[in-house]
């Protein structure tokens, strides 16, 4: 089976500042890496490769030339091939346009490598955080898509069984392949690269496919192909100080707590 794992290059830091004037996220100069949520997808792809003989894993990333570093980071962990989907026309794509670019990229991987069985994503990115890409790519491809996968108990060339986490329990779903999944961080513990893996990944070829190679015209990608306008971005207001409940005895404190909860109409 061929697995495609999609990785995004995002700031490595969890606290990213916003420009107070423009509201834009200030990412220049920050160290970047694989979106932490995508690390679980890469790990799961590698574990499936170890479970299903003959499996190959291709890494896909959309973005400028700098995204080469996250593709090589995934290759260092044991992925087999890497493709960068890159074109100046892609800049400014929202999920709508991005999902089209990714779907075309996945289709081209399928054409050039003899089909694709599974596409894996992390649950969301740590910068945009929309969490929509998995479902959008599934829709573009016309393949079943399942988000919030916390376990893949059975996997074979033709079908997989997955556990989807819900607020009130777990769904066990059997999917005929090809299919698109996004995985939760509960699914595994990502491995670290080896020194030899890191050095080998530096020398591995990474293909770059632009808009023309994917058969995409400029009007369906980038800002032109997007349906979403970002009107405003603002930092989350910082939390105020908490209330410390004091009292002589635990009973006094409990009574004071209940009084406050009643006052706030929580109980």
């Amino acid at each position, binding site marked *: 089976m061929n697995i495609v794992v999609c990785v995004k290059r995002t700031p490595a830091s969890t606290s990213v500042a916003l420009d107070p004037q423009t509201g834009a996220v200030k990412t220049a100069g920050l160290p970047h890496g694989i979106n932490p949520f995508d690390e679980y997808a890469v790990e799961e792809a590698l574990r499936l490769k170890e479970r299903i003989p003959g499996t190959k894993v291709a890494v896909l990333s959309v973005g400028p030339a700098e995204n080469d570093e996250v593709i090589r980071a995934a290759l260092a962990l044991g992925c087999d091939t890497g493709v960068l989907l890159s074109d100046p026309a892609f800049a400014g794509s929202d999920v709508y346009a991005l999902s089209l670019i990714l779907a075309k990229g996945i289709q081209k991987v399928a054409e050039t490598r003899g089909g694709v069985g599974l596409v894996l994503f992390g649950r969301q990115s740590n910068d945009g955080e929309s969490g929509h890409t998995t479902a959008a790519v599934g829709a573009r491809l016309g393949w079943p898509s399942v988000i919030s996968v916390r376990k893949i108990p059975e996997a074979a060339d033709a079908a997989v069984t997955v556990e989807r986490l819900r607020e009130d329990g777990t769904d066990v779903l059997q999917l005929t392949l090809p299919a698109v999944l996004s995985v939760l961080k509960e699914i595994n513990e990502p491995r*670290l690269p080896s*020194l030899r893996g*890191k050095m080998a990944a530096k020398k591995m070829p990474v293909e770059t496919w632009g808009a023309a190679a994917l058969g995409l015209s400029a009007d369906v990608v980038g800002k032109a192909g997007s349906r979403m306008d970002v009107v405003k971005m603002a930092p989350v207001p910082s939390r105020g100080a908490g209330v410390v409940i004091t009292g002589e005895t635990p009973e006094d404190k409990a009574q004071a707590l209940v009084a406050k909860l009643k006052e706030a109409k929580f109980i």
Partner: protein
Amino acid sequence: MDYGLTELQREMVALSRELAVKKIKPVREKYDESEEFPWDIVEELRKADLFGVYLPEEYGGMGGGLFELGLISEQLSRTCGGIALCLMTSSLCSMPILVFGSPEQRQRFLPDIASGKKLGAFCITEPGSGSDASSLKATAVADGDHFILNGVKNFCSSGKASETYVVFFSTNPKRGARGITAFIVEKGTPGFTFGKKEKKMGIRANSTHELVFSDCRVPKANILFKEGMGLLVAQNTFDFARPGVGAQAIGIAQGALDETLAYTRVRKQFDVPVASFQAIGHMLAECATQIEAARALFFTTVRAMDAELLPAVKKAIAENITVYEAMKALNCRRWSKESAMVKVFSSDVAMKVTTDCVQMCGGIGYMRDFPVEKYMRDAKITQIYEGTNQLQREEIARMLVKEAASSEREAAGS
């Protein structure tokens, strides 16, 4: 500071740092408390290819030298000096095998150490013989093609956890220092057992064990180098290993400073961060300066040592001779003085810096829930093991006098 690392060296630093932060940091307190051997971390280090960074590619290593060993030792020790030691003791076993082992012994023992499949250890200390190694009492008596080993060794780092041991015995007690012979002994050899496990002040994740030899028969093929040349093997091993203690000390000092800097920037007293007080600021500055000076001495020294050692290793492998013979042929020098200087300076810096870090953190710095006091406990051993700093200063002084006398002789002769 940019020390002009190669791409591979930079990756070694990055990977050992990443491993330390992601895998070692979450468990360092647990192992410090339980004093259990951190096998899960050993497995991570093995998978990351870090055990063989300093060994030749011919034996499955990454082809580096003492410099590379120091790079990763510093990064691992920056998070936990005790867990770092579990990797570093293997080098204490493999360095004498690399330098003094026959080509057959190199082939037999080094690949498993380079891959991390087996851990190695080194032990010369006895209850009655510490700094005065030549007074050791354990004996090896020839019996046909074998030697029969008897005696007790103690304070063996990574003892019991290791598979391969370089151990020293007297094959001729009448000859004293010239009667000492180095043997390679494998765990599981009948008559070789483990005695007391020590309870230590610091580096508690590493196991320190007593080794007990009771009519333990080992083949003559396990003699390292030559009968009666054990002290030479030990002294040369320490020449190569002491900078490693320096790297460990630098890592410990850096780790303590990292934690202290982070804390003093957020800890407020009198409404301002304590790092903004000149009294604390100057202490931070002094710590950072001392660490950088130690690192510069370490890097400069091991680079010079590698520049002589690595060509000798290459020559030895090509010509099927011992590295020691190749070093003689290439007129390599002894590094006792410089190597001792790295160890003395770095370990004294580590003790000073970690003590000051506890001081700067105040009350919380003294608590075991906070990581800084552990650095101070871990730092202490670096002033003691592989030759106390007092002994190192003796060595440095002796070499200074010897060098002065020799240059005087040269001047008089010319």
